[in-house]
């Protein structure tokens, strides 16, 4: 066994630099500690003071988020946030990024991302009922990207499928910016009784800390600081950090933990999952939240390998582990529950009378630092952003010029961003638990809430194209677009979770993007009454110094109170009137059309009118609730004609539409728009409700999509378009 360097040797040889801690951070730690830290102590600091755990760069930005309204039961700060949905029930949700691990090891990286976010949900006491995955890749042109997509999708599917939580939705975006830095974000949604919310705290001197689940091994050691570091294609050493997911173990863990929160509430003080920075972060955070201290005996920790050092044990990110704080005298009662599921459950320490975080191994004290030193005393950096030159001097507007309606539509429908994603989501079990009313493939997913007469609508959205042009407007658009997805199903948006995927925050231009997009997100969440209840930060999405386009992912949950008013995007019958809600203008900068034609996006974005957005959404929701419309779809990638085509596919019912716009306008991505169809009997009522917000475009018809634009007409067979759209992605992934 190697001997660890002494505190004085550490001071001079600075091993912590490799773990992502800077010299001044080391000095800060030593000064606050009042002596030189030993190897274990400074190792724990490197994990706890990483961006992943301490949010040292993003904290000032996250503070600006709007996190409360009258429905929020628990906001950010715990494993996941909680919102009341009525009838005594609450929805719990959170999203997490696993971009780095998935880039290194796509299958296990994606799988353990799903495993991790599920633990966040049941740590609150909620039954996980749905998973969504938001993915972003380069265009699938080369074998590497195809393999990457295959493995990420396999990893997500194999985990969710085995554990028995349906993957009901998500998104898959393609843009050159993600070629070397894919995004793998997963969201989990749970449902629980309002009264049973569980927090991750370790209070009450003498109470037991019980370690539950998989044994600790040398996998993923110090993954938190690894995820908070920038990424180099040459750096093969990163490969040692691979963790393997065990969905079977996690299934047992979910069932056992939910049994504890349901039947042993009196014994349980707190529960938390072991995520980033493993044992140290779960235990220290639990102590921190209760303002207590604790002593742990590392010899008691279930270990998979011999001779693990305290550094390795505490910073291992072995999966499928949970930490419980249990009242003295109830240890056996709780351990018995886990034994019934064949799970390891061991008392590894106690809450102490002081505020120290003390670790023992082989009878020696290997760490003795104040809890606050690892939590509240982590540095916070107030970066100043600098506007990138390309934003200060935006390029001229993109003019698509004279396009051919039909050829353009066919190309857009086959672009992988718009192409039918069945090739991806059919690898996910979307129906297990038998609550899925609307699964993947439409806009938002809809699941029923057992024990109520309600349903939840779920969606994820991100769009780096807009944020690349204007992070603030783009941030607001992302929130608005997620809300539109929900509203089109008939749901009232309740709140959001997010994954903030950005580049290196120490670079002023990257920090600018982060801070500006937060402004947009805050404005939109206030306008749409959707507070942020949880989220996750993934910075350092850079490869060889090149950052991705700022790509916040918004996961949004909405509520449907009337199960008879669930709307779908498919046209239902011929002869109904088709309306667009919202204004169509020449919005081509940042559009899919621009990415397809020019290979990248440029130009200026039109500011988002949030009041108008809110008004349009309220109208659509009203119209659905009053049963006036028979189909509803939001207009997003590829614009109005793309939305019309998608609405035609379900039942082979197209539409004949006309407007005096230039042909390209049918692909414009003006915000705030929906398409609805209205049966003849409801036209008067609908028009009275909508007033000037709705413009009649034409009527539905069997089997054909026909368009009359200024100077150009198009007629296309719906079945042919559908086939192009349906087969494109499977073909491109081959």
């Amino acid at each position, binding site marked *: 066994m190697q001997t660890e360097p002494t505190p004085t040797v550490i001071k001079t040889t600075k091993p912590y630099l490799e773990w992502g801690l800077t010299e001044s951070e080391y000095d800060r730690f030593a000064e606050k500690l009042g002596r030189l830290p030993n190897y274990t102590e400074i190792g724990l600091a490197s994990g706890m003071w990483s961006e992943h755990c301490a949010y040292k760069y993003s904290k000032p930005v996250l503070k600006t988020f709007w996190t409360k309204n009258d429905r929020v039961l628990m906001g950010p700060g715990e494993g996941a946030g909680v919102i009341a949905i009525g009838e005594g029930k609450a929805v719990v949700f959170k999203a997490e990024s696993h971009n780095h691990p998935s880039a*290194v*090891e796509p*299958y*296990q990286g994606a799988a353990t991302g799903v495993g991790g976010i599920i633990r966040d949900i049941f740590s609150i006491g909620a039954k996980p009922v749905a998973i969504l995955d938001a993915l972003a890749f380069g265009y699938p042109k080369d074998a590497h990207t195809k393999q990457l997509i295959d493995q990420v999708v396999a990893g997500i599917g194999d985990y969710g499928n085995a554990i028995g939580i349906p993957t009901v939705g998500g998104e898959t975006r393609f843009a050159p910016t993600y070629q070397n830095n894919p995004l793998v974000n997963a969201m989990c949604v749970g449902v629980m009784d309002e009264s049973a919310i569980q927090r991750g705290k370790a209070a009450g001197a003498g109470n037991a800390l019980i370690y539950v689940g*998989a044994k600790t*091994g*040398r*996998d993923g050691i110090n993954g938190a600081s690894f995820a908070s570091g920038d990424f180099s294609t040459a750096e093969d050493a990163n*490969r040692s950090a*691979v*963790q*393997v997911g*065990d969905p*079977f*173990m996690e299934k047992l863990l979910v069932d056992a933990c939910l049994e504890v929160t349901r039947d042993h509430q009196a014994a349980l003080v707190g529960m938390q999952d072991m995520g980033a920075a493993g044992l140290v972060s779960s235990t220290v955070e639990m102590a921190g939240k209760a303002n207590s201290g604790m002593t742990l005996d590392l010899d008691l920790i279930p270990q*998979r*390998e011999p001779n693990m050092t305290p550094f390795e044990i505490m910073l291992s990110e*072995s*999966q499928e582990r949970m930490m419980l704080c249990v009242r003295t005298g109830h240890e056996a009662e709780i351990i018995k529950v886990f034994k019934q599921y*064949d799970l390891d459950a061991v008392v590894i320490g106690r809450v102490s009378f002081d505020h120290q975080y003390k670790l023992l191994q082989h009878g020696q004290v290997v760490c003795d630092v104040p809890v606050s030193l690892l939590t509240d005393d982590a540095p916070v950096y107030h970066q100043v952003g600098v506007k990138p030159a390309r934003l200060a001097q935006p390029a001229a507007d993109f003019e698509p010029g004279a396009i051919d309606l039909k050829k353009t539509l066919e190309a857009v429908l086959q672009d992988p961003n718009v192409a039918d994603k069945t090739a991806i989501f059919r690898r996910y079990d979307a129906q297990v638990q038998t609550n899925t009313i609307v699964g993947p493939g439409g806009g938002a997913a809809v699941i029923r809430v057992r024990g109520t007469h309600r349903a939840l609508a779920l969606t994820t959205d991100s769009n780096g194209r807009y944020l690349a042009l204007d992070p603030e407007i783009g941030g607001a658009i992302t929130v608005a677009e997620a809300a539109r997805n929900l509203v089109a199903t008939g749901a009232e948006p309740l709140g959001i979770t997010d994954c903030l995927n950005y580049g290196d925050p120490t670079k002023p231009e990257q920090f600018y993007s982060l801070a500006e997009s937060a402004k947009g997100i805050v404005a939109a969440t206030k306008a749409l009454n959707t507070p942020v209840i949880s989220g996750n930060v993934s910075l350092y999405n850079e490869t060889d110094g090149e950052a991705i386009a700022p790509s916040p992912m918004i996961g949004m949950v909405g509520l449907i109170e009337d199960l008879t008013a669930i709307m779908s995007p498919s046209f239902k019958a011929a002869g109904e009137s088709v309306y667009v809600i919202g204004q169509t203008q020449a919005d081509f900068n940042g559009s899919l059309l621009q990415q397809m034609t020019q290979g990248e996006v440029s130009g200026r974005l039109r500011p988002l009118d949030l009041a108008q957005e809110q008004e349009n959404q309220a109208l659509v929701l009203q119209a659905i609730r009053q049963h006036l419309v028979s189909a509803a779809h939001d207009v997003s990638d590829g614009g109005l004609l793309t939305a019309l085509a998608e609405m035609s596919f379900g039942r082979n019912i197209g539409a004949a539409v006309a407007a005096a716009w230039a042909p390209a306008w049918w692909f414009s991505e003006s915000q705030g728009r929906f398409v609805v169809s209205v049966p003849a009997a409801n036209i008067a009522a609908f028009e009275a409700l909508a007033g000037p917000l709705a413009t009649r475009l034409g009527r539905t018809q069997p089997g054909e999509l026909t368009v009359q634009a200024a100077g150009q007409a198009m007629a296309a067979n719906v079945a042919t378009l559908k086939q192009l759209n349906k087969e494109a992605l499977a073909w491109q992934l081959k």
Partner: protein
Amino acid sequence: MFKAEIYVSYKPSVLDPKAEVIKNTLARIGDDNVATVSVGKYFELTLTAPDQAAAEAQVDRICDAMLANVNTEAYHFTVKALEAAQ
């Protein structure tokens, strides 16, 4: 014609849930004298190649690219020439 025999197994320190489940089940059904279990994959390929070295180089490349996940798995193989009769 050459024949390659390829073994793929988990690297040390990588969790192997399969082996865990097999070992626990064996213990449960009375085979509790089994001390360790490891699970790997075994492939056989036959291929034509100009010579042994070329065959080995190709098999190595195929293992690295496809048969093993080099992030979590290690592999080793042997390549033998088959009789000319083929």
